[in-house]
């Protein structure tokens, strides 16, 4: 019963958002509407399963990893982040990179949910310029008169299933930041992807130890 009620409420909230979004968005269509619902549901899911203080670190990591793989195009983001160096990497390098990249994301973001302090995500509307990327606009509402934090989600739905490809916080793209960083590491390692892999191995080592 409880679940049904929560589900009903989240659908209601999503529906309200869509209603508000309609007049604003020039080409509101099924694609952008669906994107809004997708982010709404994800936020709800994440808060329920991750933002509980009691959860053990190990379980939290497992849950985060599952959510990440369900809702983000992790491999594609990784490939985009590596940019032109993807082609230069060997098959085994690519395989290791995929694993390490996912680990890095988990290691970077899982701890952020521990600091969760009852903030709410207000999903507002989605727009699409090309019918391929939808930008879902949302805000993290904070207490005490602080301006809300703007979070934009770049979403695609290649197989009729929505996947996030980028998160833009206050105009800062997470993917772009990593792309600059990775490309800089590779350049400093003489253009070799193996140098990046070594750095990634070191960075993610701590995570692997926690997870065991």
């Amino acid at each position, binding site marked *: 019963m409880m679940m049904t009620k929560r589900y009903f409420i989240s659908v209601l909230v999503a529906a309200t958002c869509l209603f508000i979004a309609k007049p604003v968005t020039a080409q509101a269509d099924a694609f952008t509407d669906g994107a809004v619902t997708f982010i709404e549901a994800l936020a709800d899911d994440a808060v329920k399963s991750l933002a509980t203080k009691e959860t053990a670190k190990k379980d939290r990591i497992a849950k985060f990893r599952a959510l990440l793989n369900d809702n983000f195009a992790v491999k594609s983001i990784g490939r985009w982040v590596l940019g032109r160096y993807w082609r230069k990497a060997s098959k085994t390098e690519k395989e290791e990179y995929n694993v390490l990249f996912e680990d890095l994301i988990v290691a970077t973001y899982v701890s952020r949910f521990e600091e969760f302090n009852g903030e709410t995500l207000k999903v507002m509307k989605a727009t699409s310029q090309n019918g391929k990327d939808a930008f879902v606009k949302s805000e993290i509402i904070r207490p005490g008169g602080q*301006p809300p934090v703007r979070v934009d989600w770049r979403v695609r739905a290649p197989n009729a299933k929505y996947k996030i490809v980028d998160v*833009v916080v206050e105009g800062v793209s997470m993917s772009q930041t990593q792309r*600059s960083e990775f490309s800089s590491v590779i350049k400093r390692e003489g253009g070799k992807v193996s140098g990046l892999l070594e750095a990634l191995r070191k960075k993610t080592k701590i995570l692997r130890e926690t997870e065991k």
Partner: protein
Amino acid sequence: MSASALAEERVGRAWDAFGNTQIAEAPEQTANEEELDLGMDEEEDTDPLEDFNRLMFGFNEMIDVLFLRPAAEFYTKVLPPPFQRGIRNFLRNLRTPVILVNDLLQGEVERAGTTLTRFAINTTVGVAGFSDQAGKMGFFYHNEDFGQTFAVWGVGDGPYLMLPVLGPSNPRDFVGTVVEFLVDPINLWANNANEDWVIPTRVGLTGVERRAASLEFLDEAKKSSLDYYTTIRSLYQQHRDDEVQNGADVDKRPAPGFSYNLSKPGQNQASGKQH
């Protein structure tokens, strides 16, 4: 067109070139591999002063470890959070004239109105600016400076520049910082009245307050990044670009070659003011 705005546009174009098929988690890519190059080659130019910048970055890290960070940690330990917020609000309120002038120079009449309203409310009800009562009513703080105004006027940012002590910048923003220092009414008053303590106190307090506010964020960034220097550069460039655009929708940002001009000041306004 500024380099940072170009960088922003590049994100969009690079994702565009990436194609939808790749998001379908295709195991191996062949057809679109060529397009992956897009944007990456241009990026080589974003930091022509890298050697100098890295040197300065190392120097700043040293200053930070020795002075700024300990001061910021002391500040956060000694002062309860409400006092810290009070000081931040007070310092922000002092910058009102600079923010207002730049709102107006950019033709942002509505934002200028917000700035004035904030000043009126916070200086009185907010007790000399210590309490952000205006923010609680929905008149949120926003930052403006001369660097942003120059950008709106069409001045390019030039190469990324790591300044000693002052940190990440570029020639455009650095000139903006200097101009701000010279025209700030409080600085002018302090010089005229021979109140020698005012400027150093304000500069010092601002520095410590800003460092204190970013303690956790920068620690996180340092912990998770593979190349801290590049992370900071990328964050700075993207953040400045966002400030210049006043948070306009990322997907509606101008394409390369589009230049701003004063006759159309409200370009980015409509979409930037959602709150």
